[in-house]
């Protein structure tokens, strides 16, 4: 059982690919497919991410926020959620979104500056990426509150970074969640930096987890590059939330191996040696691969064919996104209000006249880009 508050870092899978004793127990409880899924998703997420960075360099998508290094935190937590749970991501949670069911093509569309990329397929409860830091947290809290009031078992999870812990919205969301015992998980990927600002200048505490004490909510610090531990602590917290035990603050200790976004240059503010350690010695994907290989669940051929499979899927998504018919300019007006007031109808007319084209009615269905 998860202790009320654990600030020593939970780790089941060591950087060298060996399980701890506790880890062995947890691992033993997983099916073969579950074990493989942890790895497969991380690979897919990484390949997607790398491809997106290349697409940006090629000018085919806009500024992009890479997640390389954070795959375990995202995959481990997302796999612990249910379809009915509400996910409030930040701009870096591509891994989470795809696991929850956002088509890869949508994620790419978003970074192509296309709002249709935000549309979730039926039944997928992922909100669009939250760009203004920490603002998703009160909303996730509110969604959880609604679940509780409606006596539904769905929970809400907010994803955010270490920098987000400094915002007032972090505080207000955690406080409400504590007071009302809401089924919400606050999942912090502490990747050590908020753009260039290290966590040591972000907070006088050395961990995010200990901040949970201020809200009377249990918190747990987990090795965010250990996909098994992340999966397990998230699943435990989710279960507690569903059973009326209220919120949990989870700090996944990880590292962004690349720059903040493709517009950023992390070499300006990070020590190369620090980066090297995280990349070479603590990588989340390598670690999981080593374990699976040792357990005979993974062969070189399997890896190769899985990577091939992912690349194909990603390529299809790229094609789909690039083929997706751009909505006409009048699309600007399509979802401002349920019913456009006269002044907006007039403005829309102005645009139609200017475009000299159709009236925008042939707006492609955004769910099938």
């Amino acid at each position, binding site marked *: 059982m998860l202790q009320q508050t654990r600030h020593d870092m939970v780790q089941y899978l060591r950087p060298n690919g060996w399980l701890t004793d506790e880890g062995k127990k947890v691992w033993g409880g997983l099916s073969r497919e579950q074990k493989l899924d942890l790895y497969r998703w991380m690979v897919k997420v990484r390949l997607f991410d790398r491809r997106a960075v290349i697409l940006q360099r090629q000018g085919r998508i806009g500024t992009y926020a890479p997640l390389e290094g954070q795959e375990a935190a995202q995959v481990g937590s997302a796999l612990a959620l249910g379809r009915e749970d509400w996910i409030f991501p930040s701009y870096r949670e591509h891994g989470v979104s795809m696991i929850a069911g956002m088509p890869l093509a949508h994620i790419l569309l978003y970074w192509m500056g296309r*709002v249709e990329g*935000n549309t979730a397929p039926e039944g997928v409860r992922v909100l*669009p990426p939250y760009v203004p830091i920490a603002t998703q947290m009160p909303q996730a809290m509110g969604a959880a509150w609604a679940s509780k009031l409606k006596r539904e078992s769905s929970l809400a999870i907010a994803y955010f970074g270490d920098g987000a812990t400094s915002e007032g919205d972090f505080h207000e969301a955690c406080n409400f969640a504590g007071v009302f015992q809401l089924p919400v998980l606050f999942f912090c990927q502490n990747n050590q930096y908020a753009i260039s600002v290290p966590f040591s200048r972000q907070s006088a505490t050395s961990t995010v987890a200990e901040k949970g004490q201020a809200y009377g909510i249990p918190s747990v610090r987990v090795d965010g590059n250990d996909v098994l531990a992340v999966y397990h602590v998230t699943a435990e917290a989710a279960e507690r939330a569903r059973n009326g035990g209220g919120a949990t603050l989870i700090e996944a200790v990880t590292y962004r191996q690349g720059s903040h976004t493709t517009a950023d240059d992390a070499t300006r503010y990070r020590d190369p040696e620090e980066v090297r350690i995280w990349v070479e010695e603590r990588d989340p994907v390598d670690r999981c691969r080593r374990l699976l290989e040792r357990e005979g669940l993974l062969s070189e051929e399997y890896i190769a064919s899985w990577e091939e499979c992912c690349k194909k899927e990603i390529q299809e998504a790229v094609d789909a996104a690039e083929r997706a018919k751009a909505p006409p300019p009048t699309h600007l007006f*399509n979802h401002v209000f349920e019913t456009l007031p006269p002044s907006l109808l007039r403005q829309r007319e102005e645009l139609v006249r200017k475009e000299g084209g159709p009236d925008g009615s042939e707006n492609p269905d955004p769910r099938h880009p």
Partner: protein
Amino acid sequence: MAVKTLIQGIHDGMREALRQDLRVVVLGEDVGKNGGVFRATEGLWQEFGEERVMDTPLAEAGIVGAAIGMAVNGLRPIAEIQFMGFIYPAFEQIVTHAARLRTRTQGQHPASLVIRAPYGGGIRAPELHSDSTESLFVHIPGLKVVVPSTPADAKGLLLAAVKDPDPVIYLEPMQIYRSVKGEVPDGWHEVPLGKARVLREGEDVTLITWGAMVPLAEKCAQAWAGRGISCEVIDVRSLYPLDEETIIASVKKTGRVVIVHEAPKTAGLGAELTALINEQAFLWLEAPITRVTGFDVPVPMFALENAFRPDQERVDRAISYVTSF
């Protein structure tokens, strides 16, 4: 129909909404046991229980953020901000999220919620309790903004706001909470958003106003009627969307316009109304559109609030000006 005060109209609207729509919840500071600092929610906690009427911690971004999340997850929250002067901590949640969530999610999550806040001066409230910053919200695409000035409108606009799938900022002119009385229909009563109320017809001058300035405009119109000048008085009521049709029709009839609002002049809503009329009725204008507004100074403490707010003398001067131009 019973005669009620404006705040009773608001109260009735919330009660009706809570009764008829199980998705409706009310949340805010002191709205529960205490019934709200103005008693707008009096008795609702007792009647509907603490799962429908919820006291929250003291945190406006938390309140509005929670309301947005609730709306996403199927509820219809009515969030109370205790005074408009305290809405700013929630500004980001309102302008970045409530206003844009429908667009951002391509219609999937329209953020159907109502944010109520008492606003304006005239009750000798403590410092910083008397802001009228409605134009800030009118400027943000995706929000609707309404202000009732009669008890029936108070109820009708509130219920229309609750039913409306888009986020509505519902501002309550606290100066006339209890001083304005009128009949309020029983049961579910809606006043459509986007429609102004012409409370007095006239030929010579169009007086455009809303909220606590409505009684002032009416008084001025009455006085000028005695002097042979007939004023048409329009209670805008829906600040966004504006009822352009009613406003423009009136201006085309009178050719002379005085706009009265309590907020400071520069970039207040009077500016937008002026621009709108200039665009749509330019050739009908016989005098400059004239604004009578709060001065461009921080809303003062109450000893000087009467000097700050529009009064009969300033409105009269404006009417003289446009009629003798």
